[in-house]
């Protein structure tokens, strides 16, 4: 083979690689992940083919099932979009779970104490409070990181436990339902429920989550702020040299991801639980990390990944009810898929890079 032919071949490989890497790896990773998931089911004495069929019909088998899946998508998508911005800047916020709880708490306080406000103002205040709650909780690791160089991975994770314990205390203490004996707050006034799409159970939060997808995309790729965040992520020292205030970007992405997690928190409690209590999250903050990674930290990818994970979660719930398979299966398969994607991705990059 002549040298030119070899260069050409290398060129075509290189041209192919972005496409292969951005679509091929996730798809192949998902396939491998589902296969390993099948092995896990065999260990658990479940027929994998039947199980996956059950999952699909449980999550997408009809209008009711699709509605459930979309409702489940909303918190994953909202949190995942925020994390996608933080991860782009290589700021590893793994405290979305805690920020979700604090958003639910602050928004929940509005729902509990101001239900007599005019409905539109009430709802907007409630959502705003959720955003502020999540952002404030993320402000702590942000300040710790830029002021004291404290690693955000550890601080955000520790703050998860603190937030959950704090809400647990409030729900059985000061905020406990008067006269009740369960560790839950009083029920929110019906006025606090988000409006629904006529004739369905799809609430405004779901629409908001999907509407944010192009907005976050625009933010990341078409604004100076997004450019700076990505620059900090690709190499902080170079970004600093180019005159970017790295600290300000770190604070921004943490607040942004915290805000969206907080928004997810208040949307979830005001549309599903109607109360504050310890069990308001099904580990969304952690699943959303995987959503952001599987979605390749791209808002549209995050939308697809969150839909896919919602199918897995709802499907696993169906399997739990119908076949007695523990619903934790969904968590395990999600992580296996992301591990497989990581592996395939790295392999592709090594072969073609």
């Amino acid at each position: 083979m002549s040298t030119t032919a070899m260069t050409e071949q290398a060129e075509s490989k290189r041209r192919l690689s972005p496409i292969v890497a951005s679509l091929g790896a996730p798809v192949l990773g998902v396939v491998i992940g589902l296969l390993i998931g099948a092995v896990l089911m065999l260990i658990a004495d479940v027929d994998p083919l039947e199980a996956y069929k059950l999952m699909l019909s449980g999550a997408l088998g009809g209008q009711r099932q699709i509605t459930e899946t979309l409702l489940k998508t909303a918190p994953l998508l909202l949190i995942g979009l925020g994390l996608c911005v933080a991860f782009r800047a290589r700021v590893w916020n793994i405290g979305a779970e805690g920020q979700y709880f604090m958003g639910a708490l602050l928004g929940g306080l509005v729902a509990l104490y101001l239900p007599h406000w005019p409905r539109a103002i009430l709802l907007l205040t409630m959502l705003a409070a959720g955003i502020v709650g999540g952002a404030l909780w993320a402000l702590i690791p942000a300040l710790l990181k830029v002021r004291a160089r404290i690693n955000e991975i550890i601080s955000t994770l520790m703050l998860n436990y603190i937030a959950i314990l704090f809400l647990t205390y409030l729900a059985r203490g000061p905020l406990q339902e008067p006269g009740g004996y369960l560790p839950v707050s009083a029920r929110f006034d019906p006025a606090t429920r988000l409006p629904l799409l006529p004739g369905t159970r799809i609430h405004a939060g779901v629409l908001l989550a999907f509407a944010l997808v192009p907005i976050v995309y625009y933010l990341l790729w078409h604004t100076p702020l997004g450019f700076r965040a990505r620059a900090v992520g690709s190499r902080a020292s170079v970004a600093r040299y180019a005159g970017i205030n790295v600290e300000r970007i770190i604070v921004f992405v943490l607040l942004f991801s915290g805000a969206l997690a907080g928004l997810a928190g208040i949307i979830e409690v005001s549309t599903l639980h109607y109360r504050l209590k310890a069990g308001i999250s099904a580990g969304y903050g952690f699943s959303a990390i995987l959503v952001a990674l599987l979605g390749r930290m791209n808002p549209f990818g995050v939308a697809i990944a969150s839909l896919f994970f919602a199918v897995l979660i709802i499907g696993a719930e169906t399997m739990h009810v119908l076949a007695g398979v523990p619903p934790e299966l969904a968590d395990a398969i999600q992580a296996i898929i992301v591990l497989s994607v990581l592996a395939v991705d790295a392999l592709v990059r090594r072969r073609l890079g």
Partner: protein
Amino acid sequence: MDWNLILQWSFVVALVTAGIRLAVPVLLAVLGEIITERAGVLNLGLEGIMAVGGLAGFMAAYYLENNTAIGTTAEWSAWLGLLAGMLAGMSMGLVMAVLSITLQADQVISGITLVVFGVGVSNFLYRQQFSSLTARVSGMDPYPIPYLSRIPVVGDILFNHTPTVYLTVALVILVNILLFHTTWGLRIRSVGEHPAAAETSGLNVERVRYAAVIGGAALVGLGGAVLTVAQLRLYREGIMAGRGWIAVALVIFARWRPSLALAGALLFGLADSLQFRIQALSQVERGARTIPYEFLLMLPYVLTILALFFRGKRSEQPAVLGRPYRRGER
């Protein structure tokens, strides 16, 4: 609450004794991670590895103990459980090693994903195997060290523990010797400080790192198994309660040194033990104004963040920590 009670002698003895015990699982994880990070690999998956080690250890001990055909005694079942925990930890380490060393995937992302994977798989398998009943193992009895355990106060605090405590202290010394007084340790540290130079001097960087990641994960898995098999004697969802992450933080606090890791882990054990004791006292005195137990439970997490304020210079960190090694790169 009567704070005088806290200051009583017997209370202090019980507090410190429990503190030492509670330090053990975290300390084992810290030791494992020190070995791994010294070789230049940042393994953030400890929480997941501990969960898998904890479940594997618990299940092995449980089945051995309850299977009359095999007929192992409770004591032996517990030891074999610990071994199972180590092996499970090693297999998790293998996953991390393939991802981070062979495939050179991003180590932060791999580690975080490994946590979700380990916790998810353990919870799933536990629920699958034990449905809703709370299964227990008989665990390990304390082994008072002859003569020494009879020393007043000191004997109770130091020499009346389960063998896992003595084993862990021995491991602190062994890991210290391994890292700083053997050729093996020199190899591990050199691939973490200057892999290109290590390669030039004839070392296989990848192989040393594989050994460090898998060997380190063995100790992490053992830490998880000690908690479930020898201490709590059960498994439940979220049983590691952030211990793996606390261990990650303690490695930084300990400046990658086993001796400082011992001090850091003891500090945590004591904080944990203190919050347990205050909770117990609060329950005795009903009606009095007490600290809500949730705030006491926050103590270790707050302390972890505070611990990170006390850390060494950047130069103490392994030079290429978290960076994959590509041959021929300087």
